[in-house]
């Protein structure tokens, strides 16, 4: 039996364990809610994690390319990048999949027929973890980028007018009513 066949046969159990391990990174009083409430709008975190990890698992088994894996795991990492986690805790749940799969092989992990196959799977999980870390970093950078631009939008119209006046002033021109003639600037929109 190949690792792929093993993962397909035991999909439900392995996935359920992986999702359980990921939920367990949240406070105990919240885990029951995340794990049991099925309405995707009433339980967006639980739903995002279940849906995201299921997609990632299926893509891993199917040997999907990194771009596909990145899309699958984006929502989960995006979520954890703004929750109460350190960087390693935000992405660390990925590695749990290796442990769970090894354990699920029930002592057969060392068999020569599986060894190479299992190493390849482990490397795929490692790649997934690196992708997750890339995504985590890009989400954090996006947070700071959006924060900076939000400040400008809050006084966009005042800034637009102030810039017009400063420009006139810098060129030694008299400030008149016409200086605040409206102009629609491309950079103003969100």
């Amino acid at each position, binding site marked *: 039996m190949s690792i792929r066949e093993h993962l397909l046969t*035991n999909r439900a159990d392995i996935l359920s*364990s992986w999702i359980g391990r990921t939920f367990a990174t949240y406070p105990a009083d919240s885990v029951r809610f995340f794990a049991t*409430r099925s309405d995707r709008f009433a339980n*967006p975190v639980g*739903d995002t994690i279940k849906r995201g990890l299921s997609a990632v698992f299926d893509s891993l088994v199917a040997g999907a390319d990194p771009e596909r894996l990145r899309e699958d795991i984006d929502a989960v990492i*995006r979520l954890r990048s*703004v929750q109460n986690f350190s960087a390693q805790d935000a992405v660390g749940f990925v590695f749990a999949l290796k442990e769970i799969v090894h354990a699920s092989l*029930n002592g057969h992990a060392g068999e020569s027929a599986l060894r190479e196959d299992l190493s390849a799977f482990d490397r795929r999980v490692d790649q997934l973890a690196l992708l997750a870390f890339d995504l985590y970093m890009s989400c954090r950078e996006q947070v700071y980028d959006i924060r900076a631009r939000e400040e400008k939008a809050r006084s966009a119209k005042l800034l637009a007018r102030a810039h017009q006046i400063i420009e006139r002033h810098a060129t030694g021109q008299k400030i008149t009513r016409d200086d605040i003639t409206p102009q629609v600037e491309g950079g103003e929109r969100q």
Partner: protein
Amino acid sequence: MAGAKPKPEKLSSVDYHPPSQSWMDVPPNVRPGTFNWAANPANAAYLDLPHVRKWQPTDEDWKLPDNWQQIVLEGLADRLQKYRSLKLFMDICVRCGACADKCHFFLGSGDPKNMPVLRAELLRSVYRRDFTTAGKILGKLAGARPLTPQVIKEWFLYFYQCTECRRCSVFCPYGIDTAEITMMGRELLNSIGLGIDWITTPAANCFRTGNHLGIQPHGFKDSLDFAVDELAEITGVRVEAPINRKGAEILFVSPSADYFASPHYYTLLGYLALFHEIGLDYTWSAYASEGGNFGLFHSSDMMKRLNAKIYAEARRLGVKWILGGECGHMWRVLHQYMDTMNGPADFLEEPVSPITGTKFDHARATKMVHICEFTSDLIANGKLKLEKSRNDNVRVTFHDSCNPARAMGLLDEPRYCIDHACNHFFEMPENTIREQTFCCGSGSGIGTDENFEMRMRGGFPRANAVKYVHEIHGVNMLACICAIDKATLPPLLEFWVPGVEVCGVHELIGNALVMKGEHRVSDLRGEPLPGQAGADGEGAADQPAEKEVSKDV
């Protein structure tokens, strides 16, 4: 784990849950990105607030006044005496858990202290210890705990992780309004000088010049003139924006962000176009130049001080009644407190639309009408010519802003306006709209950039529902009627649902409005106007609006 070698079928039964810990034993975590900076001492002093000092939440020592416990406990005793609701809320909660999973901060963070029941326990535990016999005798066994500096830090963090949106109160079988508990918590914090800057500074500005940014009368006039010029350029129609005009029939009050922030500004253009087209006899006020009232997020006294200017200006200008713009908490203050605080407004008349003759008798007490009520009445009476196809570039969903929706029940009027201004309107799932709407996660004065991570958590349930209609129906525009929403939803959506922008209802009305003598080639944002030659979406005007209510899946 590899050594344990469980059978595959046993894996799903492994309990990975961490051991439970009493919430009282979990210390508060002052994590960057999840709290708000302390009030600027100069602005706190301007408002005559007590115990003004320099401190920050990141400091180990918050420099509490010597008798801080006495101040807080006496303050709590005063409020228990003054507000029967608070006394009830402290006593009657049976911890049934109905509210527990209804808070957007809990749903987005998984932090149990964001369950409304537990947020209330932060205060209730202190109440039990000092105001109930069981708590005095049994202490922690009865859910009581002493008031320590750590408790105060916890209050500061969690009472500023509540947007006072009141979604939890919709589900409480006893009608406990956790927002009011948060309000009491914040009042007590402020009594020992623990206010946040994004509430204190706008409040001080508002007290001084009438609006949050401290724009002075000439600046206010400049802003409106700027908008009038811009509208003339877009529509070819030059409108008037009268300011402080005595004897006008109506005083119009909107949030100040409408005239200095984006995308609010396009809603302002919509108001100006609308008022001109119907020939409304109205005026702006350079002092009542702010609908928002950050006093609501500080204390009842501050709310009253800031709100008073609206009636004072209505009296000074001699108007008959007041029309209010697309603002969120202004309507909560208005609907629930204004008449009690600063009424009766017996010098004003019961509002009657000068265009349709409709009597707004529901506004008999406050004499103030919401612009969506006013506009939907105009539409219902056939007073507006609206060309829906001009909004064919947008596929719209509507976010019920917490305060107009839950505090004043304004649910159908904005939808009626959107329905008549757009061809493509889609509802979000029913457990995320109307009375059950999810907050933007940034209301009640905590929409700051330093608190950005917490806002992304709190806004996630809202964004999650927007994402659904974006994926299913191609929604690319989220309409709302609150200035805080317009400021905070764009970054929220940029993070969670790229491709969806935010607009006001009156921006859509302003785009669709056919004005006499107009010449338009662009919409209010300066983008090509759909329905015009060469633009997208022409010929859709006669089609009925698409309208779907998505069910939970």
